[in-house]
């Protein structure tokens, strides 16, 4: 009985570091979406999950946002959020100028949703400059669609509504 108890204790002692090491490694290499979404340049409350936008689009009440795609025009032509407009790549000055032009006549309380989805979230060159541009212009009701991998994986593959064309 004493020997069996020792076996159990030894196994537990070995198992704990194994599981801890494995799970730590797992977290480092494959961060949870919530951890990845922590971004100094876009505050977490400004992030909009895809399912939330779908809900907004489907709702018959409430103000509809102006939805702007600030990434690639080619990818927009393949698939985009219905009703969204292509503005220009937020990572390029020409795209930011197009964004400024598009919102010039709008009130600062306009509900705007920005999205890109060209690349994995942390590597997207467009979404942060576009968001910062709107904030610097005084817009305070701006949300950013959080697409962890890309528009295909986090929107189209989920079966959410899609429109095509330029």
């Amino acid at each position, binding site marked *: 009985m004493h020997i069996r108890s020792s076996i159990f204790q030894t196994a537990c002692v070995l198992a704990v570091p194994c599981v801890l090491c494995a799970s730590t490694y*797992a977290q480092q290499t494959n961060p949870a979406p919530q951890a990845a979404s922590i971004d100094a340049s876009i505050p977490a409350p400004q992030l909009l999950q895809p399912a939330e936008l779908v809900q907004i689009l489907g709702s018959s009440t409430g103000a509809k946002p102006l939805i702007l795609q600030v990434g690639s025009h080619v990818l927009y032509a393949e698939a985009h959020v219905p009703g969204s407009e292509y503005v220009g790549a937020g990572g390029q000055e020409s795209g930011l100028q197009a964004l400024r032009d598009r919102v010039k006549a709008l009130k600062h309380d306009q509900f705007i949703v920005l999205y890109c989805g060209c690349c994995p979230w942390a590597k997207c060159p467009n979404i942060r400059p576009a968001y910062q541009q709107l904030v610097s212009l005084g817009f305070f009701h701006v949300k950013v669609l959080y697409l962890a991998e890309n528009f295909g994986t986090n929107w189209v593959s989920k079966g959410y509504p899609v429109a095509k064309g330029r």
Partner: protein
Amino acid sequence: MGRIRRSHSDLKRIVVLVIGMALLFGLDSARPASAQTQDPAAYGGAPNFSRVDLDHKHVNLSAYRGKVVLLNFWATWCAPCLSEVPRFAEWQQKYGPRGLQVVGVSMDDEEPPVRAFYQKHGLNYPVVMGDETLGELYGGVLGLPVTFLIDRNGKIRFKHEGVTDLEIIKSEIQKLLRRP
């Protein structure tokens, strides 16, 4: 004595089981989520396309039959893509004589930045301009990078989306090059 030996044997079994479970549950989820190697059986023949590349030469995918083709959708504004391109050029140099052909499809909206990048980095493989038609032909390229590995018979064998462990792609190329 026999009881102690049996207990040691039990201990070994438990330890192996516990370590195995830890590795299974822990390391399985440690694989990069975006490095997706899908079931090759899910793909069929690579859709053919014909375009003019940045050197004004005609690129017809089916003309590469007999070679292993690495078809890479990328863009100059895509940071993960730019870290892959030099490796692809290296592989073209290294494995080209054994039958590898890299083909780049830029999904940039305009050609000038692609041409500038192509010339600056002296890319040693053809690059064509892509569009939504070409993207849809390959099942929808709705995020970059996307890389297809096509075998010598023109069948798509592997597809990778997003940030990918290039060593995996390299080993897949080596495997495909060994096949007739």
